């Protein structure tokens, strides 16, 4: 028996290994069979489009999960009252004409802080329940924490801090009110899909129930989400019958999936991957100006050196942002004069970016009493990348400002900056703004006493921001926003950088165009025959 032990051990291990592999390849009893998604040497089946994103959905309840990959999936399962029109450049991005009807057919301001919505009749949720004004009231009550079992903070999580409530007027008419006139309320509602009021909210996290054009067929966590088209969708059956969302964290692996034909659309393509994708025979690249801004904050409150406007202006003159865009970002960004992209409401084209002029920078530093420069720290959350912070540090070093970069992960950055609202002199971050309006972002970045990313205090700026947030007449509001941009520029509240472009890899068999708000909505797409 002992003589056989080594052979026994070896062959037992071999048999166990083979058995386990066979068992693992066999679907579990009772588990729904995965649809025929491509596995080896084959494009996705006819009628199926595969989207590769960096991460999986965190849940199926749109009020609880606001990250972009989850939002992209849930938009197919749920509908908002209306949807923002594609990439059309307009003066007032949140004006009533910039949205197309979905669950609401028309809308009108009936009081300064109240909008009335006439709803689409005879629309059903997946559970068969009818969508009515009661459904809208329920969703707004959830945001306000009035529904039992609702977690706190949903209004802030979903950008509804001005929401006062909703009131049913009739079966298909509902009013939504804000605490004060809110020029952005339509944009906020366009970004908020509605859930069924006929099921327990606690079930939504794993069992979605909406009116959207697709239903959830399977969710194999961290492997794929498979959506199946609803033939009776009220706006018409989707052209793509099956959409698969696959989480592939590694950017190289996502690109490989596109090149191999295993994915039809990949997100977050890095600039240096573009030539490879463009040269492939079955894929191409699509680029769009996003709402994402590179931001470099300066602590003008706690740091007496950065509190001097000449120093802040010197920092703006010292950094060659155009070269950073070209060399570090591969050209996939657009220089901004302040923090407002050209396609945002209230953009003032008369405000010009600071030119690169290191000589002028040194003069300003000397005027401020820092002819020999000074030392400052820079907090750099690693999720935004370290290339740009290092480039900025290099330019500042050339004019005598020595920068010590402090890399950290994002939660540590939030903890450090929000706990006592301290900033280690400066920080680099990237912010996104799906409302296409600078108001909320400027509140975050330049209002005094803001607990977010503002280390700047100016009473005039505060008054202008308050006026902009409460003015609903767009002509008047645009003038206020223009004054804010001029003041920001003259005061050099930040080191002004750029507006980023989003790069997508797209299969040549897919008809799809990217949106500026980063939403991937396959209902608008189709497959070539």
């Amino acid at each position: 028996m002992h003589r056989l032990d080594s052979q026994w051990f070896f062959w037992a291990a071999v048999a166990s290994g083979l058995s386990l592999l066979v068992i693992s390849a066999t679907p579990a009893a009772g588990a729904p069979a995965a649809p025929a998604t491509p596995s080896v040497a084959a494009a996705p089946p006819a009628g199926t489009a595969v989207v590769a994103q960096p991460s999986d959905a965190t849940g199926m309840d749109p009020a609880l999960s606001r990250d972009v990959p989850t939002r992209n999936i849930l938009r197919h399962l749920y509908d908002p009252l209306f949807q923002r029109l594609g990439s059309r450049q307009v003066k007032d991005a949140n004006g009533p004409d910039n949205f197309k009807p979905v669950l609401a057919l028309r809308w009108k301001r009936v009081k300064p802080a109240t909008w009335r919505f006439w709803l689409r009749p005879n629309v059903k949720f997946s559970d068969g329940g009818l969508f009515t004004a009661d459904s809208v009231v329920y969703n707004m009550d959830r945001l306000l924490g009035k529904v039992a079992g609702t977690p706190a903070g949903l209004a802030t999580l979903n950008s509804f801090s001005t929401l006062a409530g909703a009131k049913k007027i009739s079966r298909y008419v509902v009013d939504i009110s804000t605490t004060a006139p809110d020029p952005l309320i339509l944009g906020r509602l366009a970004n908020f899909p509605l859930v069924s009021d006929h099921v327990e909210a606690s079930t939504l996290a794993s069992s979605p129930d909406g009116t959207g054009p697709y239903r959830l067929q399977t969710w194999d966590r961290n492997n794929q989400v498979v959506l199946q088209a609803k033939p009776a969708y009220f706006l018409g059956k989707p052209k793509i019958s099956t959409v698969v969302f696959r989480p592939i964290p590694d950017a190289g692996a996502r690109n490989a999936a596109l090149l191999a034909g295993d994915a039809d659309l990949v997100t977050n393509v890095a600039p240096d991957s573009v030539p490879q994708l463009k040269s492939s025979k079955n894929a191409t690249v699509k680029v769009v100006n996003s709402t994402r801004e590179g931001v470099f904050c300066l602590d003008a409150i706690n740091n007496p050196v950065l509190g001097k406007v000449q120093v802040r202006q010197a920092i703006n003159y010292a950094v060659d942002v155009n070269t950073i865009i070209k060399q570090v970002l591969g050209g996939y960004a657009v220089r901004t004069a302040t923090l407002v992209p050209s396609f945002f409401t209230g953009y003032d084209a008369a405000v010009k970016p600071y030119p690169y002029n290191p000589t002028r920078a040194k003069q300003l530093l000397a005027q401020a009493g820092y002819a020999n420069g000074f030392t400052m720290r820079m907090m750099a959350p690693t999720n935004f990348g370290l290339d740009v912070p290092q480039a900025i540090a290099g330019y500042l070093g050339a004019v005598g400002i020595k920068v010590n970069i402090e890399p950290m992960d994002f939660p540590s950055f939030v903890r450090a900056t929000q706990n006592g609202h301290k900033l280690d002199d400066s920080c680099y971050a990237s912010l996104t703004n799906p409302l296409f309006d600078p108001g909320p972002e400027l509140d975050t970045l330049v209002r005094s006493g803001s607990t977010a990313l503002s280390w700047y205090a100016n009473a005039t700026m505060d008054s202008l921001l308050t006026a902009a947030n409460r003015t609903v007449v767009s002509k008047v509001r645009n003038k206020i926003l223009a004054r804010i941009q001029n003041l920001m520029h003259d005061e050099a509240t930040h080191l002004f950088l750029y507006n980023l472009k989003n790069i997508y890899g797209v299969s040549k068999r897919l008809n799809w165009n990217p949106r500026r708000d980063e939403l991937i909505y396959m209902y608008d797409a189709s497959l070539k025959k």
Partner: protein
Amino acid sequence: MRRYLVRRLLHALVVLFLLSIIVFVIARLSGSPADVMLPIDAKPAERAAVTHRFGLDRPWPIQYWKFVRHAVHGDFGTSTRFQAPALRLVIDRAPASIELALAAVFLALLIGIPLGVVAALKRGTAVDHAATAVTAVAQATPTFWLGIVLILWFGVSLHVLPLSGKNGISSFILPAVTLCVVPLVGIARLTRSSVISVLPQDYVRAARAKGLHERSVVWRYVLRNALLPIVTITGITLGQLLSGAVIVEQIFAWPGIGRLAIDAIQARDYPVVQTVTIVSASLFIVINIVVDLVYMRLDPRIRQRMLART
């Protein structure tokens, strides 16, 4: 034997208890889930409300006592990120990691043992030098690079194997091959040195003198006695791989607990971080016990020594 097993299990409970305290403290020192969940412009009152909702504003001993009280009933808390039971999330993903680890170890043994035996039997020859060179190159190859290269060759250029995800037997091949390289090198080298140390033994010479075929000598006398250190390294390797091959899971989008752990750490999802750590540690402990039992089976002298200590 029963007393031995009971003693090992009691040791295991002490280890898990101490580990739970360590991971509990470290997780809370790293930040709050409210920092990740809420937008950066959330007000202090809203952050406080979220912190209160998860019970994180209570003193740490009370939080730990609550965690232990629920954990003994199988409730390891609710994921702050996924709003689902943490244990359920880990159990759902553990099979993928276990299967991948077993596949990798299986490949490592299948290739590593014969490679080590051949190198030892042909010691000093070109075959031995070639085997040594191959293992040296394999050891120097970064896992992430190898994974990407395999994807490009077999997935993109040749298009014969899946690139990502878990979808059938063929989807195991590339990640298992990538993952098996490091343990394969260790097993091959250890097999070689272990076989070299056994070859001069008297019982091997006696077996050859009896006229047994060389293959029988190697299988029945040499390898059996050279196996003990290989069993140890196999167990250690399996334990390490079971706790999640993070890099391989990231590259191949493998739905295992390694990725779950990384996402949970980044999101400060305390329940999932704690659950992954405790489950991984438990698997490691079980493997260690199994390795020791196999030891005792293979070598009665070790069995007598271990049981005598009980």
